[in-house]
């Protein structure tokens, strides 16, 4: 074997390995997203039901532009363009005692409210170190966000 082809072999195998990583990740992503979305939807809906008697029902998943990973789980409530249209945000909020999954609702006027924590016992967020200051900060952030778009599947 000549010198250049000898050097090419590890490079080719490395590229093959990276391609293998890419295939594994793409396959895992496609295989898990449906169940993940269903689980997050169920958890958020349960929190909304505990928050309000006539809780809004989760609709299509939305995409908020230029906001990154934190706003990956956003859902529409009510019909598009209708008076009861709103948005539900499921996101990680960190208080004094670790990270939790918070659920927020933003109405058509752009006013946001905290609905509760998903996946924990009871409705008292302060018990989990989520203070009113933390909640206010997230409400302000959500109210500042632009209008979300339909998620492309």
């Amino acid at each position: 074997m000549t010198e250049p082809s000898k050097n090419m072999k590890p490079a080719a195998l490395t590229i093959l390995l990276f391609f293998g990583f890419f295939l594994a990740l793409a396959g895992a992503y496609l295989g898990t997203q449906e169940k993940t979305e269903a689980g997050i939807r169920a958890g958020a809906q349960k929190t909304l039901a505990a928050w309000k008697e006539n809780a809004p029902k989760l609709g299509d998943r939305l995409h908020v532009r230029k906001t990154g990973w934190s706003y990956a789980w956003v859902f529409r409530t009510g019909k598009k363009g209708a008076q009861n249209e709103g948005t539900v945000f499921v996101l990680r909020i960190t208080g004094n005692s670790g990270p939790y999954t918070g659920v927020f609702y933003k109405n058509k006027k752009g006013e946001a409210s905290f609905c509760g924590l998903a996946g924990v016992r009871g409705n008292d967020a302060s018990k989990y170190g989520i203070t009113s200051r933390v909640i206010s900060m997230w409400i302000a952030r959500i109210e500042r966000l632009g209008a979300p778009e339909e998620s492309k599947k």
Partner: protein
Amino acid sequence: MKNNTVAFLFALCPLVPAVVRLAYGIVLAVAFLWFLLTGLGIRELVRKLRPDDAGPYIEMVGIAASATLFTLALQWLCPILSVSLGLYVYLTAFSFIILVSIDYGSLKNGLFIPVLPFIPMLLAFSVIRELLGFGTVSIPTITGILEFTVIPGFEFWGLGFWGTAAGAFFLLGVAAWLIKFRQRKAFAARRQA
């Protein structure tokens, strides 16, 4: 490894906000085990590939890929927990790299010595914090975390401070002092013998 305590504290620091619940501790301990297994596998692959100087970079990419795979698996198994813990899986990978990088001698020999004792320490730290800060013990479930009350009436007389990051650093300080004290005592006993 000359000073395990320091390496452990370095590796635990990025995870302090998350290891406040046993449920979180369990998820992150499984993540550590996963990184250990995939780390060994990737190391073996790299050894066979012989990419010379690129070896450590390929290993880093491999650990990043395995962290993403773990996040996707966590999303599939515990979707609600994946929202709160997603970022910390990557921080666990970072802690794993800190542990194996500090103990480079063990890494060079193909051994990941500090990782295995770190896992029970992570679990112990999370269970102590949860008991002192919430009076409960929790486990991860599909719908979030399942809490069991261990200390009744905690809401009335419990001190939630121990569940906070500030409380965690106090506990870490006490743990470091206790380990040092034990090590010095053992060293003195050996010198006397």
